């Protein structure tokens, strides 16, 4: 097992954002992390990415308690823009190259250019769509083992969504795992292998979509409605 979360809990004040969540992720799979706003998806991702510390429970990465060394193998993309506002597009590539040994600068340059981002553009002047593309370009230019993408298709126009999905599928393989949090069920239904449903911080269900389709013929939207 690549990632094991055991009774993971995180409180914000008296509210449990994630509550006793136990979840295992296998290598070489694409997971869709689904749930309503405020269900705990982002908090879970941030705990795995090492940005938020769990109140209780544990996270094991490749069998050992997760620590800062594992951040070199985990690529996290937050839903909000997070690059330093003094940076230009080229600086973001330089920053990632400086700190992540798995970063492919050439791929980053190619991806940003194909997305219409020039290296001289200032990060703080980018539109929300362009900013979303930049986050993806930087994250997907890493050869990480585990990708955590928090709402990667938010704020992206229809045509660019296709490009982004192609990028994800290009990168996905036997050696890595993708976890994609999204509300755009139709967009991801064709390529995610497992749907992880989160409700009120709890794991509501984890469904192998292909088996489910064979068994009941239910679409992802139907499953979402039934489970949540």
């Amino acid at each position, binding site marked *: 097992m690549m990632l094991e979360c055991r009774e993971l809990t995180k409180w914000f004040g008296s509210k449990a954002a994630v509550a006793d969540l136990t979840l295992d992720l296998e290598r070489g799979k694409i997971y869709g992390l689904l749930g309503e706003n405020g269900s705990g998806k982002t908090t879970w991702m941030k705990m795995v990415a090492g940005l938020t510390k769990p109140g209780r429970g544990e996270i094991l990465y490749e069998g050992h308690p997760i620590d*800062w060394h*594992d951040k*070199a193998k985990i690529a*996290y993309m937050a839903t*909000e823009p997070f690059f*330093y506002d*003094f940076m230009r597009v080229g600086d973001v590539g330089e920053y990632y190259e400086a*700190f992540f040994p798995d970063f492919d600068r050439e791929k980053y340059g190619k991806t940003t250019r194909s997305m219409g981002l020039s290296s001289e553009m200032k990060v703080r002047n980018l539109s929300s769509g362009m900013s979303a593309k930049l986050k993806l370009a930087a994250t997907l230019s890493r050869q990480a083992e585990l990708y955590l993408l928090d709402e990667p298709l938010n704020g992206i126009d229809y045509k660019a969504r296709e490009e982004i999905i192609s990028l994800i599928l290009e990168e996905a393989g036997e050696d890595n795992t993708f976890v994609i949090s999204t509300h755009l069920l139709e967009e991801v239904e064709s390529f995610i292998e497992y749907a992880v449903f989160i409700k009120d911080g709890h794991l509501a269900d984890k469904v192998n979509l292909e088996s489910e389709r064979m068994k009941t013929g239910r679409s992802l939207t139907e499953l979402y409605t039934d489970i949540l």
Partner: protein
Amino acid sequence: MGKLIKYEFRKQRTSRVAIFIALAVTLAGFWTGILFDNNEIMSLSIIIMSMGAVFVLIYVGIEGILVFNRDLRTKQSYMLWMLPKSIWEILGAKFISAFLQMLIVFGISCAAVGVSVAGAVLTIGGLADLVRMGQKMSRTFVEGGIQWTDFVYIAFGVFLAWTLVIMTGFLAVILARTVLVKSKFAGGLAVILFFAINFAIERIYDLMNKIPGIASSANFGAVDLNIWDVVFYIVVCLALFGASGLLAEKKLSV
């Protein structure tokens, strides 16, 4: 760690540039006053420079703490905390970049003011006056019993005191951001904690000085600093750094 320091130092560039621009403007005013024999402009420039120096001293002194607080408050914090770097490296880089900022800002400012004053004396009174000024300064030190080594002790004492402020600030910010995650009151709590931790350190320092033999220890030169003060500062700074690192490692969320 060098790369971390580079980016931490970059975060303070705006304030650095603003300070140097303000310095250049006041020095330009000072020289305008000298060259056009206008005492009002010259005096005004010196007053602004002196008042500005106090503000810059305070601001640059605590800028490292302010940058750290901002790093934990905004989404840009992810840029730092998602890196495969230990908390010790991150805090260490922050401390070193804050020190470099102090060194560069005060080094360049002191050099610019020193050269300007020397230039002004040279312009108004000629080389003889400049030499006389140098001799007078040396005499003042010698007659006042001040050795050049005292400056080294003073610099060391100031460095220790500043380190204590920065380490206290780091711990206060981490504590506040751990207790009040995502709250807009966390900044205010950090200020209260900063003064509370300082108060506690002062009390411990007072207690230490009640131990026979410690208070009566000989000072370094003419400076009010003895070996026990140095040991106390170093131990407390290390303890604060350790507590900050452990707390951030175990509890801090961004």
